[in-house]
């Protein structure tokens, strides 16, 4: 029994909690992509860089606050800086819309034109991010490092193995829960949220009902900015800020959106978790878990790792290809690209 519990704790510590955290980060990022897709009708390739930009602004604000001696005690100071990050990112996205996308909207350009434009925006943001904070990795997490320490868990459970939950992980799960809940409430219950769904559903009929398209587009960008910044900052707190990491998140994010069903918010959330859990489950070495579970003479010699962590992006790719071949609409019957 103790062996089984130990195996369970090891699994929770190295697979379940990390995957859950990563899934939350992906879900927030994917929600932004899916919102832009439903309202503006294109796949926004600049989403990864939007996350990076929001994070950079938040990091700079955090440093400034730290230099003033402000802190949140056990929580990271970045939480205080987050609203500023969201505000500046919203402003950047609205400016991008005003000077890039609006032109194509009035021209009623094809979706692919928007995608290419967003690719250009992505490269510009990419450069902007490096201009602001340089190409190096940054660590901006402060406050209490652990929400649940190994010692505390061992003292409580009496097990050999320990479940450790870092503050950044606990924060990620909590914030994601709140934000996703808020977003769904907004879309389902408020007049503006319903108008957004109506506009996404049938643009012409929304116009006939007197819904103002410019306002819907603005709100969509602001929501995307908020989601992307929070996702980016949480990812940065969890794994450290690396400029390239956000660019690399684009693939799992798009995989999550497509798996869940393009244009379906609930699909983006579920898809985020599917991708995250697949990546972590496939790349984890199960030697320790199996050693606890199997009789001593059957214990594995090797690492029992299906795929080396370097190949984790292949997981997103494989899932993406399978979904596009087998069920292109995704789990929740979204649109087909």
């Amino acid at each position, binding site marked *: 029994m103790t062996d089984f519990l130990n195996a369970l704790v090891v699994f929770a510590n190295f697979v379940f909690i990390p995957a859950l955290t990563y899934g939350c980060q992906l879900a927030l990022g994917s929600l932004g992509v899916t919102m832009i897709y439903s309202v503006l009708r294109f796949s926004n390739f600049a989403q990864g860089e939007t996350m990076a930009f929001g994070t950079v602004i938040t990091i700079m604000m955090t440093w400034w606050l730290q230099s003033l001696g402000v802190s949140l005690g056990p929580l990271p100071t970045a939480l205080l800086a987050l609203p500023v990050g969201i505000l500046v990112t919203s402003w950047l996205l609205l400016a991008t819309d005003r000077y890039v996308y609006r032109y194509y909207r009035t021209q009623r350009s094809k979706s692919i034109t928007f995608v290419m434009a967003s690719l250009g925006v992505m490269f510009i943001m990419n450069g902007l991010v490096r201009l602001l904070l340089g190409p190096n990795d940054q660590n901006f997490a402060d406050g209490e490092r652990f929400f649940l320490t190994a010692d505390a868990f061992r003292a409580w459970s009496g097990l050999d193995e320990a479940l450790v939950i870092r503050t950044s992980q606990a924060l990620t799960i909590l914030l994601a829960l709140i934000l996703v809940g808020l977003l769904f409430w907004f879309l389902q219950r408020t007049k503006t949220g319903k*108008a957004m769904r*109506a506009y996404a559903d049938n643009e012409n009929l929304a116009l006939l009902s007197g819904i103002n398209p410019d306002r819907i587009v603005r709100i969509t960008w602001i929501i995307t900015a908020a989601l992307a910044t929070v996702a980016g900052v949480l990812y940065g707190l969890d794994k450290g800020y690396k400029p390239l990491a956000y660019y690399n998140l684009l693939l799992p994010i798009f995989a999550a959106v497509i798996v869940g069903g393009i244009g379906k918010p609930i699909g983006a959330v579920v898809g985020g978790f599917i991708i995250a859990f697949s990546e972590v489950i496939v790349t984890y070495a199960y030697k320790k878990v199996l050693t606890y579970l199997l009789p001593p003479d059957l214990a594995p010699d090797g690492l029992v790792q299906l795929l080396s962590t370097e190949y984790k992006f292949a997981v997103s790719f494989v899932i993406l290809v399978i979904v596009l071949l087998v069920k292109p609409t995704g789990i929740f019957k979204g649109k087909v690209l």
Partner: protein
Amino acid sequence: MTYLVGENLTGGYGSGPSILNGCNISVDKGEIAVIVGPNGAGKSTAMKSFLGLLNLKEGKVTLDGKDITHLAPQARIGEGIAFVPQTENVFVSMTVEENLEMGAFLRTDDYQDTMGQIYDLFPILKEKRYQLAGQLSGGQRQQVAVGRAMMTKPTVLLLDEPTAGVSPIVMDELFDRILEVKSTGMAVLMVEQNARQALEIADRGYVLVMGENKHTGSGQALLADPIVRKSFLGG
């Protein structure tokens, strides 16, 4: 003074060729006007000129004596003109009730009364109020579409082929409902393929050919006219 008047309507879409060539169409409150005619006669185009989707080169549109020829489509909705497109006329991913709420988007007053009236008029909608509009049958969808348009509390209702693609029984029921809508004092202008049935309930009938008025008269008069019967109603 007729409530909604389109006089000498001439024009087409954008800078394209003229589809309407001096066409006259009007409808009063508490009346149904029906536009019929062969394919490509400009029936839908004539209706869209009332909504402001057309580039009019000549002619004018007045609503209650007020010239609205140069008003944008959005502004006309505020003036009390509601339009039900022929296709894609409901929000398929939203419930029946949400569809109606979207119709009332511009209203700041309490629209529960109007919603109640619409539910009285279309009892099936009340029954299915929490169902997605995309899951309803063709006839029910048309009722949602008309209901959504009526939520704006319009004085003029424009219907583009409301019975397209529904079974004959449902068509009769829809026409009954449209008669009830008319009895609330609304001006109803519709384009119809099912010319005979539509003219039976029409107070005014317009037969358009090549963007011009070919025959005009009350629905009954047109139905009785041998020339109209022969050329447009199949004998």
